[in-house]
């Protein structure tokens, strides 16, 4: 399964100079909404990695946190991962799933009786967040939208 790496950095840097790039689509949405997305992550598209089943759009937020969006062959964002010094804007990253996430997290936290990295499951949404201040990492995916046979472990 050979991967083709398409480097768009130079091209995108030019675009950013011309107009601030409002990066990113949200989990579960259509990739074609990227440019219409009015969400807040003021970032740069660093690269697109592609294989025969999905694309990864890697974005760099201006606060230094990297966000990777996994886009299926049908154009749906089925997974998002992030790593960097600060938390990403989860409302934007999780999109329509954020409110349920925020509402349910306290119960998850209380059930585990402590703090630490968290695995959150609700329906077919899975959110995993780990790390510490200055080095957070996490991922979120919709099991129902994952390409057939793809393992969650490959979402990094």
């Amino acid at each position, binding site marked *: 399964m050979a991967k083709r790496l398409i480097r768009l950095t130079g091209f995108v840097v030019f675009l950013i100079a011309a107009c601030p790039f409002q990066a990113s689509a949200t989990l579960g949405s259509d990739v074609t909404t990227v440019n219409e997305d009015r969400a807040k992550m003021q970032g740069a598209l660093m690269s697109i990695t592609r294989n025969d089943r999905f694309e990864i759009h890697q974005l760099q937020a201006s606060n230094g946190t990297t966000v990777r969006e996994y886009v299926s062959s049908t154009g749906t964002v089925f997974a998002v991962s992030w790593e960097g010094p600060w938390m990403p804007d989860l409302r934007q990253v999780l999109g329509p799933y954020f409110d349920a996430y925020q509402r349910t*997290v306290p119960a998850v936290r209380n059930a585990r009786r402590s703090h630490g990295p968290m695995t959150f499951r609700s329906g077919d949404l899975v959110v995993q967040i780990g790390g510490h201040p200055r080095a957070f990492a996490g991922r979120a995916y919709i099991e129902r939208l994952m390409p057939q046979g793809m393992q969650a*472990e490959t979402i990094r």
Partner: protein
Amino acid sequence: MYRLTFFSALMLAQAAAPVCGSSDGSTVNTQAIVVNAGPASTYFNGAFTSVVLCVPGTNTCQTISGILVDTGSSGLRVLSSALTLPLPQQTGSGGAPVAECGEFTDGFTWGPVQMADITLGGEQAKNTPVQVIGSPAFSNIPPNCLSTGAPEDTLADLGANGILGVGLFRQDCGLACTFTGSANPGIYYVCALGSCTVTTQALAQQVQNPVWLFPSDNNGVGITLPTVPAGGLAGTMGMMRFGIGTQSDNSLGSSQVQTTDAAGNFTTVFNGQSFGSSFIDSGSNGLYLLDTATTGLPTCSDAPDFYCPPTLTQLSATNRGANGAAKQVGFQIGNADALNEAFTAFSEIGGPNPGLFDWGLPFFYGRTVFVAIEGQSTPGGVGPYWAY
């Protein structure tokens, strides 16, 4: 249950016992810590201590117990509901009060930055910015902060009366919060007319790891906890020692120094694979590592946060610092569903954490772990580093 309650009360009482000076004139650099269910009676594998806060420059003071000892963060945060002192408010541009959105993995702490003299053992950090969490006067949480997760602003949500961040860094944010524009991560805010906006915050005004502000014993902390056997204990007690190689009780000895990268991470090698974003965190209540596919450990059917192998599983990994120093670490993961619910200290609690190792409190059982603060000189070199 009675036994546990009595035991917990006993340990809390001991942790809160004042220590003011030693007979030979040197500063008392020790502070007791306890592992128990904490002030909300909910916790396990939580290391708690007490702090004495005073209105700066006065004898108006308060001892707050049930403070979580956290090597994964830096700076002191206390719940507003646990605080009775009228601490002075820090102000920013235009005299407006400063508040903070403290980011953690499972939520955020929101509240004003106030000034206090912080006493731990016989050490004192004077006029130090601390975060007061969940203050009713700051109930309007800005949208940027709300977008990072769920609030942890009450005793029920925090499980502690506060968090004592004694990690690798001097400040909780660092240089990033001094930047203007979109490069600023939006941790500090100034609040006026009920609405808060992101502000730049100079290093000295940020919430501080109190240890590096002590007049002496200020280059780091050593945390010692006893061995906890498989099956767990009702609770246990240990010690926090301030300073590394500054007094007779805090020398590095045979501990190996492993430096970290700028983010506070090192590499853990497991089954020949390297995981470069690994860290040590007394504020995590288990050994959180990798995933089922990599470890072969199944998660619990009723709790995806924890591993539930059918039998106690012995494992080994190697931690390697940025300086190349490497040490093998043995550990065990047990069935989280089979543990005694009345106990609060377990060495074998673990759970998934894709792509990295979070060496939580069980890592501290049976050893002394030193954390050296960034930029501070020690006999083992300049921090940041871990040594054990």
